[in-house]
């Protein structure tokens, strides 16, 4: 029984028994090369739910603050490994009411980087199929078809994933996937290597070029499951005016640092912000770096242990920082 069938079964049961008002999963977009979040209310419609390596959306963002509609709805949600860590981060701070949730964990073999595939073709992709495990077949509108090895086109965060199995779930869709030995191996921070090798001036020049393209559309902040201020974001405040409303590299970078510092210790680098940015700003340079430093400072990986408090909400007398 495939994971997709498990998801459909859990969803149908939860909806039929009235345990949830609606179930959030993934479904096909306007063509079969796109996957979009799906909100299913009627048990008969669970067949719209699907699972394949294109399901990149972190659905936990639809549980935060003002997103549940009606506000007191009982919600069923699918979570991958990284998504479940953002859910745990929210649960650690009781920002989401566990009793109103029904969480279906989906062990994940890695999500395909659709943007990288898109850049392989100048024509538009109309279908991305997965005929067998590890194979990706892309068809474009003018009929060109090319095959890729799934491992070669994975999202960068997936190639370094240490938690493919959901950390928290009420039910799990299918068998667990083999996990890298977390005790023996150190996390792989290879994606930061070439940026960290730059000199200070080169870093500043690169950041200026990158952040001059930012349009301050708030997609990265609104899509982030642990960024919960919603309509009271300090980035929009004029009293105090921490970030100027002017759209210039300086203010845009400070705008992003507000996001980064507010999720420090709660963001597991799920990459939802990188994928939501319309102008493809490499936000991983910031949130991956933060997670690297937190691991170096405390050996801490955000959103992994439910009972634990995020690292900046506790302290330890044994900390040896500062002179």
């Amino acid at each position: 029984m495939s994971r997709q069938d498990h998801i459909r079964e859990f969803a149908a049961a939860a909806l039929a028994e009235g345990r949830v008002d609606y179930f959030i999963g993934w479904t096909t977009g306007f063509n079969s090369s796109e996957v979009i979040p799906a909100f299913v209310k009627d048990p008969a419609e669970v067949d719209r739910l699907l699972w394949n390596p294109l399901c990149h959306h972190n659905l936990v963002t639809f549980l935060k603050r003002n997103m549940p509609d009606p506000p007191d709805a009982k919600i069923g949600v699918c979570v991958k490994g990284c998504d479940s860590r953002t859910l745990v981060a929210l649960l650690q701070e009781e920002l989401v009411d566990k009793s109103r949730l029904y969480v279906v964990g989906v062990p994940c073999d890695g999500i395909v980087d659709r943007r990288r595939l898109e850049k392989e073709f100048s024509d538009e992709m109309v279908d991305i199929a997965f005929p067998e495990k590890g194979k990706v077949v892309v068809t474009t509108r003018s009929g060109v078809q090319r095959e890729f090895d799934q491992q070669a086109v994975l999202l960068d965060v997936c190639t370094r994933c240490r938690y493919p199995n959901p950390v928290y779930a009420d039910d799990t869709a299918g068998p667990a996937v083999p996990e890298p030995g977390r005790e023996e191996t150190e996390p792989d921070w290879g994606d930061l290597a070439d940026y960290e090798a730059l000199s200070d001036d080169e870093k500043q020049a690169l950041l200026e070029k990158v952040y001059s393209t930012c349009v301050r559309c708030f997609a990265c902040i609104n899509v982030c499951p642990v960024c919960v201020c919603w309509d009271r974001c300090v980035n929009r405040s004029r009293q105090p005016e921490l970030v100027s409303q002017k759209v210039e590299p300086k203010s845009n970078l400070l705008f992003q640092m507000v996001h980064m510092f507010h999720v420090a210790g709660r963001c597991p680098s799920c990459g939802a912000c990188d994928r939501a940015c319309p102008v493809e700003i490499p936000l991983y340079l910031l949130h991956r770096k933060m997670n690297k430093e937190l691991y170096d400072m405390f050996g801490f990986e955000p959103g992994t242990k439910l009972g634990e408090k995020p690292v900046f909400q506790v302290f330890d007398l044994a900390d040896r920082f500062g002179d």
Partner: protein
Amino acid sequence: MATKFLAQEQLPALLEALAQGARVVTPVKSDGVVQFELWSPGTEVELDVLLAKQSPKEWVFPQCETYLRFDYTMAPPAEGAEGEAALPHETVHLRTTNEAPRQVIFGLRPCDARGFVQMDQVFGGYGGFYFDPLYNARREATTLFAVTCREPRSTCFCTAVGGCPAGQEGVDALFTEIDGGFLVEVLTAKGEAALAGVATAGGAGIAAPTGVTAGAVTGGALLDATEAQVAQAAEVKMAASAKVEPPFTLEGIRDNLHDNFADSRWHDLCMRCISCGTCTYVCPNCYCFNINDALVETKGERYRTWDNCFNPQYTEETSGHNPRAHKANRFRNRFSHKFWYYPDKYDSLLCSGCGRCIMHCPTRIDIREVLRVMGTPVAATAEGKEA
């Protein structure tokens, strides 16, 4: 107007000639991302990818624009006044700033050009209201050279809103890619003026292309087009239009949106919307903006920046009341503004069907589907398909 032919390899020369008198802006691809950038000799113009990430709106209606600077000179406190009175200003000197350099935007698509036409109505005082000197100065100084779409995407629906892949609305000269180069249809006086400078001056380094038999050589890059070339261009246009499937009808859309205003399906349609604002900032038509002040001691400026109706504080009143507090209201306002409010005032649609809002929405909210569900009469709609 004139119909010319430009050989493919002459394009850089043409752009260089244009760059003598104006700044040239073209779509440029840098590490996979196509955006409209300032062109300089040697940069490769990206015409294969159909649509740049953002429309060229930013070059005529900048995202952040300072339009007023002011300097206070402090008046000395009046004799006998103890302590510093609250900011007694003797004079405040205002300076309006508005740079409007001459520019040519090459390589935009007819839907982008149409976006400017819709904004012209708002900023140009068409509704009989106010004339925006900032936008109009730049708009007058801008010449739009559009390129016909050859490979419309499945998200394109320009034909459904009255446009077409070879639309001429707002376009000063339309380039259509044919064998060996471009058919250039000069449509407006402004287009002719910009190209005249090229044809007659011969442009530095523009040599008549060798080996091109048809048509008399006019000593510049632009040759007279032959019937064969014109016919081929027409074929390209027909083929492109055929590739665009109109997803919804405009018939009665305004009244249906009016009747469906309080319909509960707005909530279902916007369940996956994260109320960010990406769709409005990549859209060639959206023009809403905010005005802010900045002050450092006695020097200050007043600037306007893009804003959008998805910003929760867009309609938040000082009393704290917010008529569009819930994202479903904001979501409804965006589509109603484009297909009902704007047409009520300016008698055309605030949407040119480019599909960028579908391509760049983080959860792919599809404007066509929203209008199929909400643009049809209340009674006749099939059960709203769950998004």
